[in-house]
Each structure stands twice: as structure tokens, then as C-alpha cells.
């Protein structure tokens, strides 16, 4: 099992979610995050006081999938979240030791 964390643009969430569910990859957690990579921040001005905003708002989508589904899921996210401009985000993949469904106590793949 692997966890896929994808940092994406806000307005791409619907597309990503729809593409994943269409491919039968269901269940995800979304959080609002701030950060920066290569995309540069912007300047904001309030009555002449100027601030450089480095940390840009993004969404982080987290999902856990079986090993054989990782490639498919990543491909779907890339296709649905891409605009081709700097700032499209990143995908991180990490191994997961165990998954437990709270209601039934099931573990492993069946709990995903």
C-alpha cells in the first residue's frame, strides 16, 4: 500500500476528484496548505505598505491505494491537475504499513 500526496491548484480539485472516482479510485482527504517551490510569490499592497507573499495557497490531496494501482492513480492526477505552467504542484509517494477501518476493524487492502 502506498500513500499518494498531491499538492495541486485549487481550481483543479474537481477535475482530479472526478477523474480518480471515474477510474474507481475512491476515498481521499483534502487540506488547504501553503507553500512554495519554483513558482515565485507575488506582491500585495495595502495603503502603500508592500508585502511579498511567498507562501502560496494550494490544496493537498491524500489518498492511499494498493501498490498495483499507484501508477494508474499518479497518471490520472498528472493528467487532470496539469496546466503546463509553473505552479502545478507535486506528487509524493510513501509506503504505508497498515490501514484500519474503524467501524469494522478490517485491516490491509480491504480497509482501503
Amino acid at each position, binding site marked *: 500500500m502506498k500513500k499518494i500526496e498531491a499538492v495541486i491548484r485549487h481550481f483543479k480539485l474537481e477535475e482530479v476528484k472526478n477523474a480518480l472516482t471515474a477510474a474507481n479510485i475512491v476515498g481521499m482527504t483534502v487540506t488547504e496548505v501553503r507553500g512554495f517551490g519554483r513558482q515565485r510569490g507575488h506582491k*500585495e*499592497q*495595502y*495603503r502603500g505598505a508592500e508585502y511579498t507573499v511567498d507562501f502560496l495557497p494550494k490544496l493537498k490531496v491524500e489518498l492511499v491505494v494498493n501498490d498495483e494501482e499507484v501508477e494508474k492513480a499518479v497518471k490520472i492526477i498528472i493528467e487532470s491537475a496539469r496546466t503546463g505552467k509553473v505552479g502545478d504542484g507535486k506528487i509524493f509517494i510513501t509506503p504505508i504499513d497498515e490501514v484500519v477501518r474503524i467501524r469494522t476493524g478490517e485491516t490491509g487492502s480491504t480497509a482501503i
Partner: protein
Amino acid sequence: MLARMRYWGLATTAMLLCCSNSVFAEETAAPAAAPAFDTGNVAWMLTSSALVLMMTAPGLALFYGGLVRKKNILSVFMQCLFLMGLMSVIWAVYGFSLSFGGTSPYIGNFDHVLLKDILPTAPGVWPAQGTTGIPKALFMAFQGMFFIITPALICGAFAERMKFSTMCVFMILWGTFVYCPIAHWVWADTGWLCEWNTAAPYRAIDFAGGTVVHITSGISALVCCLIMGKRLGFGQEPMPPHNLTYTAVGAAMLWMGWFGFNGGSAVGSNALAVNGMVSTHFAAAAGLITWAGLEWIQRGKASVLGACSGAVAGLVLITPGSGTVTAMWAMVLAVIGTCVCYWACTTLKSKMKYDDSLDAFGVHGVGGITGALLTGVFATEMVTNPGRKLGGIDGNWAQLVPQAVSVAAAIGIAVVGTTVILKILDATMGLRVTQDDEVQGLDVTQHGEEGYIFY
């Protein structure tokens, strides 16, 4: 037809009222029959009083609240709300009397302490406010709303760092020793700066409070931020407004409330009130597009905060002249004045390096002074036909002298009063919260609450 019927209806009602009054007088040989009040005037002054109250909260509270960081939103709301309570009580106890009582040119007296002779003096007998056709109690209530918003404006200068307890004491003293005297100078019939006091040495035109409200609060704001010092981290860490939506809503409410502020200063429902409202509206409009336009030209974008600031600047600027300046000249006045305010908030502030958190000085102080002086230029006899030339465009450039004197007087009492009060409080109570408290935010440390709770 409908209009005529209404007219007759009114006439009949009036006749009935007269009859019932005279019958009443004969039957009881009553103590001087209660004066019949002018329903139109009473209705408008009731409305205006409510509008001016609305300016402090939610208007000003939202306007200022959106500009602070989110850990301090409640402290700003509390300052505005608490002043509604505190200043109102003081106004009833002695504030009104000290402002409008007696016949001295310099200060009121204690004739109306605890609203003596303001509230009914006999069953159903309401003392009248001169020849205005409204009860004294209503005039007192309307003026009381100004006693709330003026100190509330100062809060913008020391936002995010002043101790709440000290603020309360400061406002009591400030209201007593700064506001009451200058309100008496300018607006009491015998005040030495009063426009309609023919015996006054300087008959300054201040219709709705350019000097009394905006210069005093704006200058006191500057003194406050100079004496109290900057917020922790000012200039090093970003302090952008946390919710400009609030600020925009607040600005719109201020704009609307100002119709009562300036329109109500006519103390009647008449052409003067119409001028107050109309000039006010167009000055705000001109101020808005001026500020936003300057940003657009200078920085490439017109900002929401700029539009809000411009509208408020326009409103401040026209306040002293809203009874004498007609709408077209009001727009000219607002355009000139807004440029000055814009310069004060963007250039002067960063050059002088004072931390006027929410630009109380830049908008109200600078706008108040500019507006008071420009009133001497644009005031005209056209509004009320007072039987004399008023401002520069009437050919009476000498009006600039009393305008300048009133500005100097307002600056003087604000600087001296605020400095003395703050120095005393600094030595006794302390002005600022501790560094830890300031970092944590005033909401939690001063009030034990949070503005935004997520769970």
C-alpha cells in the same frame, strides 16, 4: 390628487392637535402647555441618531476590524462596542451638560447634569430644543452619538497593542477634557468658534464635526501612536489586513451612516439636511474614485482598500462643509482633499515611520484639517442664504482666518490634552499590554475569547 388629499389630511390633523392643545390648556390651566413638536424634524432626527450610532458599530468596528490581524479582531469590536456603553453613560451623567450647558464661550457647566431639564420636567412636558421643533432629549441623544464615534475613531491608532483597562480610562478623560470643551467652542450657541454666534471672535464653519470630531480624533491618534510606539515587529514582519471583506462592508455602512451624521446636523428635516446628505454622498463618490484612481495610475491596480479609504476620506473632508458647500463643489473639495490623505497614508507615514495602525491620523486628522480649510474656500451663501458671504467662492477669502483658527484650536487641545492624559496613564496604569500578550493577541489576553474558532 393623492398629494392634495394627504395635504388636507395633514391640515386637519394639525387643526385637531391645536384644538386639543387649547382645550387642554383651558381645562387645567396647565404649566405652559407642552410645545407641539415638528413631526418631520423629529422623525428625521430620530433616524439620524440611529444612523450615527450604526457608524460606530457595526460600521467602524467592521472597517477597523478587517484591517487588524485575526488575533485582534475582537479587541477592535470590543473597543467600539464598549465605547457605546461607556461614552453614553458619561454623556447622560455630565458630558452633554459640559458640552452644551451654560453661556460661557469656553466650556459648558453642570446645569444639565443627570439630564436635568432635558428629560420631561412635568408629566408629559418635554423641553424643546430652541426653535428647532424637536425635544431637547432628542438633540441630546443625537449629539451623544458623536460623543461615541469620536473616541472610537482614535482606536485605529493604537489598535493591536493598548491595554483595555487603560483605554477605558483614557477615553473617559479624553471625552471630558478634549471633546466636551471643543464641542462647546464650536457648537454651543455661545462658543468662541461658533458659526452662528455673532459675538464670537472667530465664526468658523464646522457644520457636522470636521474640527470637533475628525481633527481632534485624528490628531489625538497621531499623538497616541507616537507616545505608545510601534507594534512589535512593525516594519519587519508582514501585518496585512486579515479580512478586507469586513472593511468593505464597514466602509459602506459608514457611508450610509454619514447621511445621518451630516444630514442630521441640520437638526431639522429641511433643505439644509438635503444639502448635508447630497454633498456628503457626492464627496464620498469623488473621494473613492480619486484614491482608487491614484493607485491605478501609480501601481497599476485599483484596490478594494483604496476604494474604501477614498470613500471615507471624502466623507471626512466634506463633514465641516456639508451645510454650506453644494454638491458640485463638494466633489472638487473631495478630489483635492483625497489626494492629500492619499499622500499622508502612503508617503508621509512611511517617511516619518510612525505606526498609525489603521491610518486614523492619515484619514481623519489630515482629512479633517484639509476639509476645514477647504470649507473656507468652497462655502457659499447659496445653501441657506444666511445674508452674508461665506467662503472664497463667494468672494469672502477672509473666512479662511476663522477656519485656520479653529483648526489650530482643535490641534492644540488635542495635542495638549492627549499628551497629558497619556503621560499620566503611562506613569500609573501603563499603556501597552506585555510583549507576550501582544504576540499572543489581545482577544485572548484582554478578553479571554477568540474571534475565530474552528472545530
